[in-house]
């Protein structure tokens, strides 16, 4: 069953990444600032991936697609 907490996790992740990005950019570390964006997107995708897999498996079994 779907669990809605992933959406709030993604929001918190985006807020944290935004703050870190702004902080690092102020400190003059532009390369690390960009790296935080990459890491944030990667963590978000990794967290969402199992839900997508579950959805596809569920659709496959309910609609008899084999």
């Amino acid at each position: 069953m779907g669990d809605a907490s992933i959406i709030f996790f993604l929001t918190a992740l985006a807020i944290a990444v935004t703050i870190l990005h702004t902080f690092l950019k102020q400190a003059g570390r532009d390369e690390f600032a960009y790296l935080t964006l990459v890491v944030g997107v990667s963590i978000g995708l990794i967290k969402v991936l199992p839900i997508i897999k579950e959805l596809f498996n569920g659709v496959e079994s309910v609609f008899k697609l084999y």
Partner: protein
Amino acid sequence: MSSIAAIIPIIALAVIAAIISVFLQQSKLPVMAIIAALATGAIIFLRLLPSFSELISLFENIALKSGLNSYYFIVVIKVIGIAYIAEFGAQLCRDAGQGAIALKVEIAAKVAIMLMAMPIASALLQSVLRLLQ
């Protein structure tokens, strides 16, 4: 039977996710809005799946009672499944601004559906030919 109780959390989830997506687009990570939309769509459909399976089994009962060939009914169910899953992916691509990729997903789904429906079309043609002879 449980769908009336299940619809209110779905509406609440959708509205909250829409508000959060608008907020995420303003942040430094606008990609997260698309990921959140993906997660929301998946969660809502995962919650709908039990009702869907109940509905399909009810329709299957009706189809069995009417003496329909169960092969045709299963093809219809498969077509609905493919259409939904392709629409899900295509709409997400379109929301991300990639209309061209969305069109390719839709073409792939149309080809798959056409391939699945071809045996039924040929059976129909054969029965028409049998009537003509």
